């Protein structure tokens, strides 16, 4: 039986072993790893400081292999075929694989070994950095590359004032050019980090206790800090190969051929420790490919490694940065928007037709859409492609690489979709591995699914074979008023957390009384059920409506008094109102009684419904204003309050073109003009922000309201579950929606308006209705058998003169 010994247990070794086991390798696998834990996802290392545990990051260890931890290999006896470890253990091998990775390079500056100096490579390093940051106020990262900025983000997350010192002229010199570096610097400085480029390190100095107290630059300037992290590049760990006489590169790296074989045919080397064709790879994608090639060779195959793509796309400190292909070319085209901090550059051949590479800072859309065209003819002129964010209907060649982490091509993905009948991204991931590492290719995977004609099933869930829009029509046309009737006549089973709230929302949009009446109560999410938003410790928030953000001093005082009396945490939200947090279920009616008595009503923060209509100060007070933005915002908020919809709805009104209310970030936003109002629709913030599109101009207030009535009702009728207006509008097409709403091309506008009139007429405050009804009130208890008892698992601790939840320790119950 072949005895295979692997030295090092990092991501590359993990991938090798997994591939061998998957492919039925029948030898004995022994792994000797120096770290005190099995291989973990180093790419995700930083998440260890933001909540992930070591266990979360650890890769599974396949059954049947022998894994020794804390086992550093110190010698290879190639004649005898034995490796020895630091503690004297000898392990014989037939085939040896070196997967020793790399170690951080620490430049030889005075003071580099002081207490308080760290590198950023292992979980142990992060533990040490976290510990040292406890008493510290400031930190410095030496090195402004990809890993340096990631480390800087981590220090910032640990609460340190953070500086980045980069020798080169700009940040991330390996990924972006000088122009991109300048834009990146703007982003990073805006986050409050100190950036020092073109700056070396003279020395690191110690304080009286011998610990790091700061860094002195060659110009004599001192930056104070108690934590210093070196991130000045990595060096292949080739010491073992060197001492046993294997060929290594002049500047480091174990020399291998295309089959990952070293100069000794019994020894392979893979991963970051390797020098292949003059290149050392510092990204996990090529390392994984090497692992697969070596596995194939060990199994007798002919796999070969070819020069790998070093494209990178990442989000650092919230800024997208990407680089693909070459970083120069005969011609280049640059798009730059200094206001939003976007910098995009394409390198093309001298006839401007072949794409050679590109750089993006601030917005990496071109990376996804254009990277597959590297080395090919572009589908349009470079400037046009940059301005429009890529070809609209992209037809990639089959051999174009879609997932660079796992080297999966479009052809492989499409044939997997076709041959194995894949229907969603999760299946593509498990079948082809595309999308499983950094995740940046997932949007492409979705597109390929749709292009492959996969009928992305419109069924809401296992209980209904209809889309939300279809269910809406069924309910509307057939006049159905209960979930039971709908599911027994048009569905199967008894529903779930997907279809029940959806149907509840449809019934509510069509005006079917109080949402907690009769059977409807059982359909509601916990938020709708308790008319409040659930928070992480099981308490709820209370959000009274403050239309247009306008509030009287007396009402402000009531909010303050209620918060004080119930010990609630208060926060002014981005929606121009005040949230009160930390209410237990049984306190909700007591709190709301006080609020309703003072003239407040539900703010529907809990529902998929209208949230707020923000406003700027407007013409009443503002010297620039041309219309009364506050007055309109109040009127709109009162008109559409309580309107249940496929997703939340937000709105804003600005009193002039300066747009202080940020109305174009809303589902429907209104901006005053000299002549009246401009209406914008389909905006949103959130994960994928979108500016609203101009829908109609210079409207009178009556015209405006009529158009919004129609627009909202048409959206409510036809959108999918949890589809914001932005996505809905893009699917329907702005022109089509304009035809339906402004020209009544479907002849339904009268009906839409009538439906909205019914909503407006039927509105009643949900909270007042609950307070008036003892039956509904009885549900607001923590325990049915002990109505007065508060939930003992809920506790608070002080923070900044208010309360915050004491979090409940987590240990999943394993079956």
């Amino acid at each position, binding site marked *: 039986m072949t005895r295979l010994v692997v030295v090092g247990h990092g991501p590359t070794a993990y991938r090798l072993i997994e591939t061998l086991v998957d492919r039925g390798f029948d030898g004995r696998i022994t792994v000797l790893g120096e770290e005190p834990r099995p291989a973990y996802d180093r790419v995700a290392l930083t998440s260890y400081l933001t909540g992930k545990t070591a266990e979360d990051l650890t890769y599974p260890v396949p059954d049947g292999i022998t894994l020794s931890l804390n086992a550093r290999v110190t010698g290879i006896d190639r004649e005898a075929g034995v490796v020895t470890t630091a503690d004297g253990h000898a392990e014989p091998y037939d085939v040896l694989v070196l997967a020793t990775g790399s170690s951080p390079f620490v430049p030889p500056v005075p003071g580099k070994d002081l207490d308080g100096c760290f590198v950023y490579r292992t979980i142990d390093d992060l533990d040490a950095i976290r510990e040292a940051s406890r008493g510290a106020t400031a930190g410095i990262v030496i090195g402004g590359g990809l890993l340096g900025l990631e480390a800087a983000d981590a220090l910032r997350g640990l609460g340190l004032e953070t500086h980045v010192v980069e020798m080169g002229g700009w940040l991330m010199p390996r990924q972006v050019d000088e122009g991109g570096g300048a834009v990146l610097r703007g982003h990073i400085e805006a986050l409050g980090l100190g950036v020092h480029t073109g700056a070396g390190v003279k020395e690191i100095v110690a304080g009286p206790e011998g610990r790091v107290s700061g860094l002195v630059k060659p110009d004599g300037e001192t930056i104070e800090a108690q934590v210093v992290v070196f991130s000045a590049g990595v060096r292949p760990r080739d010491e073992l190969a060197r001492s046993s006489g294997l060929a290594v590169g002049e500047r480091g790296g174990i020399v291998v051929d295309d089959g990952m074989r070293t100069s000794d045919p019994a020894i392979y080397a893979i991963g970051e420790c390797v020098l292949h064709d003059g290149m050392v790879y510092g990204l996990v994608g090529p390392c994984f490919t090497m692992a697969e090639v070596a596995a194939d060779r060990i199994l007798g195959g002919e796999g070969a490694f070819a020069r790998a793509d070093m494209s990178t796309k990442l989000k650092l400190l919230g800024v997208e940065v990407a680089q693909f292909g070459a970083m120069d070319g005969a011609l280049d085209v640059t798009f730059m928007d200094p206001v939003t901090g976007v910098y995009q550059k394409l390198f093309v051949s001298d006839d401007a037709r072949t794409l050679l590479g590109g750089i993006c800072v601030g917005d990496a859309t071109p990376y996804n859409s254009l990277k597959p065209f590297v080395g090919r003819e572009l589908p349009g002129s470079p400037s046009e492609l940059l301005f429009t964010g890529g070809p609209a209907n992209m037809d990639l060649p089959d051999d174009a690489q879609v997932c660079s982490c796992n080297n999966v091509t479009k052809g492989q993905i499409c044939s997997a979709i076709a041959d194995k009948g894949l229907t969603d991204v999760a299946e593509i991931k498990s079948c082809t591995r595309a999308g499983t590492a950094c995740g940046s290719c997932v949007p492409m995977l979705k597109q390929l699914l749709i292009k492959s004609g996969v009928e992305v099933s419109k069924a809401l869930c296992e209980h209904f074979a209809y889309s939300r829009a279809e269910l809406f029509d069924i309910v509307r046309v057939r006049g159905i008023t209960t979930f039971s009737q709908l599911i027994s006549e048009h569905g199967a*089973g008894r529903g779930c957390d997907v279809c029940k709230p959806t149907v509840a929302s449809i019934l509510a949009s069509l005006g079917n009384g109080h949402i907690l009446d009769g059977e409807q*109560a059982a359909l509601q999410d916990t938020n709708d059920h308790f008319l409040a938003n659930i928070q992480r410790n099981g308490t709820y928030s209370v959000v009274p409506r403050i239309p247009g953000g306008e509030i009287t001093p007396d009402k402000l005082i009531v909010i303050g008094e209620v918060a004080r009396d119930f010990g609630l945490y208060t926060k002014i939200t981005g929606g121009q109102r005040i949230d009160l947090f930390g209410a237990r279920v049984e306190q909700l009616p007591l709190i709301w009684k006080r609020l309703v008595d003072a003239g407040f009503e539900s703010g529907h923060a809990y529902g998929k419904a209208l949230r707020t209509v923000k406003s700027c100060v407007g013409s009443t007070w503002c010297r620039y204003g041309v219309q009364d933005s506050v007055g309109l915002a109040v009127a709109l908020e009162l008109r559409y309050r309580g309107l249940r919809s496929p997703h939340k709805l937000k709105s804003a009104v600005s009193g002039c073109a300066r747009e202080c209310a940020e109305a174009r970030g809303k589902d429907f936003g209104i901006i005053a003009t000299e002549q009246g109002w401009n209406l914008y629709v389909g905006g949103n913030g959130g994960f994928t922000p979108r500016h609203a599109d101009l829908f109609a101009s210079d409207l009178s207030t009556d015209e405006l309201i009529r158009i919004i009535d129609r627009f909202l009702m048409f959206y409510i009728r036809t959108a999918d579950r949890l589809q914001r207006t932005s996505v809905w509008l893009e699917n329907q097409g702005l022109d089509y929606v304009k035809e339906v709403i402004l020209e009544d091309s479907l002849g339904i506008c009268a009906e839409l308006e009538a439906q909205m009139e019914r909503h407006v007429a039927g509105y009643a405050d949900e909270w007042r209705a609950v307070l008036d009804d003892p039956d509904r009130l009885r549900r607001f208890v923590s*325990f*049915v058998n002990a109505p007065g008892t508060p939930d003992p698992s809920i506790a608070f601790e002080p923070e900044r003169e208010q309360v915050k939840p004491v979090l409940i320790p987590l240990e*999943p119950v*394993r079956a």
Partner: protein
Amino acid sequence: MTVLSENLSAGLEETGWTRVCAYADLMPERGACALVDGHQVALFRTFDGGLYAIGNRDPFSGAYVLSRGIVGTRGNEPTVASPMHKEVFSLVTGVCLDDPAVSVPTYRIRVAAGTVEVSLA
């Protein structure tokens, strides 16, 4: 596990059962929580009148909230979805159907003379 029996003689002394509420207090397809010997027990009454009792603690978030989730079915299995992040648990076995390595405890529950009783044994 469910024991549904309306005609258990009320006088019968049986250890371990705690009365928690009237059957009519439980809304169909909605949960409620009972505090039994310091344990938080989530009670559910399904559409067909069945009763189920599981631990109230959502193992994914650590919060005691499962009784406030949406009750439904997956296949023929009655379920509740955690109101925190929507993981679905079987009301019969307590096993999380989205991640079978995770489960919550189940408890015995029955109706005696119109009163719901729970046993931690």
